[in-house]
């Protein structure tokens, strides 16, 4: 752990030492500045999604508890134990939501979008700018298709009477998909920037950081989506 090594230094003993050292490199392996920014942001977003998951679990109430012991769900161990510890009364209003098949399609589309980015990254590394263009556009279009698909799911669910106010399961579904969608939309801003540059005929070096970091971000959002989708499926 380089950082720990750094933190036990006694700086008052060594005036003049470490001067040639390349600052940040002393402490951490140095990815580019933008990459550091992205990783920090990924940390922030992870905390946010984790807290939503925590709230989700705490709000499940006695859903899934053995009906025989439903009156006293605290007697058996499950996710309701956490709520009981936190002093949150166990609600019994959790109605599982419909799981439209379109969600599976959307998940597939998001996976394809991530793959397109991975391909773009490979093209970039080998300097295949023509192919890069195709991959970039595919990545972006697929992401838009995913968002359109999610909106369609929303419309179907609302048409079927799954209003947000009707059950906490519905409310969490809309909250999670909206938060995830907004994050993807933010990523598409950077996609737009990179794509515009490539269309203008930018060199690989100019857009390298953008493409690499977008790929990371897309994979990250894919993982988040799969975790969230899994959570929706099992409850």
């Amino acid at each position, binding site marked *: 752990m380089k*950082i720990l090594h*750094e*933190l*036990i*230094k*006694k*700086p*008052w*003993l060594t*005036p*003049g030492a*470490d*001067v*040639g*050292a*390349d*600052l*940040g*490199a*002393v*402490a*951490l392996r*140095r990815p*580019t*500045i933008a990459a*550091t*920014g992205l990783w*920090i*942001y990924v*940390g*922030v*977003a992870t*905390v*946010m999604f984790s*807290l*939503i998951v925590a*709230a989700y679990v*705490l*709000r499940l*109430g006695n859903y899934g508890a053995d009906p025989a012991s439903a009156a006293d769900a605290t007697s058996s161990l499950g996710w309701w134990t956490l*709520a*009981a*510890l*936190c*002093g*949150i*009364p166990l*609600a*019994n*209003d*959790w109605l599982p939501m419909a799981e439209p098949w379109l969600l599976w399609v959307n998940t597939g589309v998001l996976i394809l979008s991530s793959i397109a980015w991975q391909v773009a990254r490979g093209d970039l590394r080998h300097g295949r700018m023509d192919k890069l263009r195709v991959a970039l556009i595919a990545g972006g279009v697929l992401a838009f298709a995913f968002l359109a698909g999610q909106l369609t799911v929303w419309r179907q669910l609302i048409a079927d009477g799954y209003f*947000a*106010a009707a059950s*906490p399961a519905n*409310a969490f579904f809309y*909250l999670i998909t909206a*938060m995830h969608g907004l994050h993807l939309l933010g990523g598409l801003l950077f996609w737009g920037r990179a794509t515009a540059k490539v269309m203008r005929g930018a060199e690989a070096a100019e857009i390298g950081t953008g493409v690499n970091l977008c790929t990371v971000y897309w994979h990250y959002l894919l993982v988040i989506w799969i975790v969230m989708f899994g959570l929706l499926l099992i409850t």
Partner: protein
Amino acid sequence: MTYTTIAEDTRALHHPKTWVGKYVWSQDHKVIAVQYSLTAIGVGLVALVLSGLMRLQLGFPGMIEFITPQAYYQFVTMHGMIMVIYLLTALLLGGFGNYMIPLMVGARDMVFPYVNMLSYWVYLLSVIVLMASFFVPGGPTGAGWTLYPPQAITEGTPGASWGIILMLASLGIFIVAFTMGGLNYVTTVLQARTKGMTLMRMPCTVWGIFVATILGLLAFPALLVAAVMMMLDRVIGTSFFMPSIISMGEPLAHSGGSPILFQHLFWFFGHPEVYIVALPAFGIVSDLISTHARKNIFGYRMMVWAIIIIGVLSFFVWAHHMYVSGMNPYFGFFFATSTLIIAVPTAIKVYNWVLTLWQGDIHLRTPMLFAIGFIFTFIHGGLTGLFLGNVSVDVPLSDTYFVVGHFHMVMGVSPILVVFGAIYHWYPKITGRMWNATLGQLHFWITFLGTYVIYLPMHYLGLLGVPRRYYEMGETEFVPASAQWANEAITIAALTVGVAQLIFFYNMISSYFRGPKADPNPWGATSLEWQTPKTPPEHGNWGPTLPTVYRWAYDYSVPGAAQDFIPQNVPPDGAARDRDM
């Protein structure tokens, strides 16, 4: 891009030609810092006036007609929220963080100047949305700064129609602004330090702001999630936090939600928030004490580790705000223990500040007075925290004025004293002018002594059992009539201290125009911000080449040195210090 190309290339800086480009849509961290600070202080003055009005009601009930019970709760809410988030967080991180980080680590600017500019403007938007709630039907929310549901959004609470919506929206916007700023502060510290500026050569100020920013980045998402969920409960009728409830004789459409869930989310943010405010203050006060006592900070590594440990622990204590909300006793035991453990690194810091003063060459200039004043108020507030951290002591004291006295001492007055000290300390660098020392001392003594007149009696009132948040006391068996005398005295002191702040503003404003020209390094300080080629520093900070750092930030009174300080960018002259020290 490697570090050197960014650092040495001044052309990469955005150099606007127009006045608007330089001072309004500026990407210079120093201008953004001043924008952040002035906005925060401006909105803080609103909160100060609100506290004066609250005190008038408490000291002289019914004297002012427009302070109705509703208005009182709105004042309480807005005062708390503004002071904690829109003043202290914005000023310490957006203001001091922006100004100090690049200068202290030897960078030309923040690493993402455009995002930094955006951060300020989004912050300003959040302030405008918040202030707009004073002008909507029903006025601002009166839910208390903790915004606990269900009452925050049920009818009957002031501002339940519009005020709460604007409050939640404003918080969301603020968090976006903070995240943009925070990404900058953390990345700049990690990636843009100049040659030789190892992590352990950074001044404590940078350490405090750095760790506080990380806390903010990890804690504010909890507030965001809570705000979004409450907004959905309020606007589209979901039941995240709303239980089945009968309001105004009618059952509401909500069911099954848990107000306790909100409390957990809120305090998962709310407790680290205390340290988001406190850690920068810890860092700044360390530098102030060391500089003005002409001694190296005692136990520098301990100070840094304590900041980090406090930061980590602050995420494991949140439920100590909820002892009376009801939770499993094991939970209460856990949180009481973790809370008391935080006292250890905190006490280390206090001892080290005192030991830094020990046998120091203490110069009682205004910034130093504020720093020492901070040690007093912080010890005081910290000790009452030991009372409240224990479940069994907290239960009877909770919701009394003891709590009000405690948190105002520890996270209201203490950081504010540091803010004043810091402004006096860095004012010569920021403006190039020197303030009036007599007025500075006068400002300090009125503020510091006034603090004790205001908050000490509150502890006593709390022990008597005077409940907080009450518009007026009415008759009780246990509160003697003399409690009202204390309330009157507190009010008179609070108004005096409030008005005395005009001395500070007069001093700052008149010195800006007529103050004597300041020396570039009037205190003989070692850290980099005092070594800039120009005062105030220009855009780009360092002229053609970046400074190189050879030593830590605390080489004061080094034996054998010509002066009683050696700046960080002075190379060792061969007469190196005794290695055994």
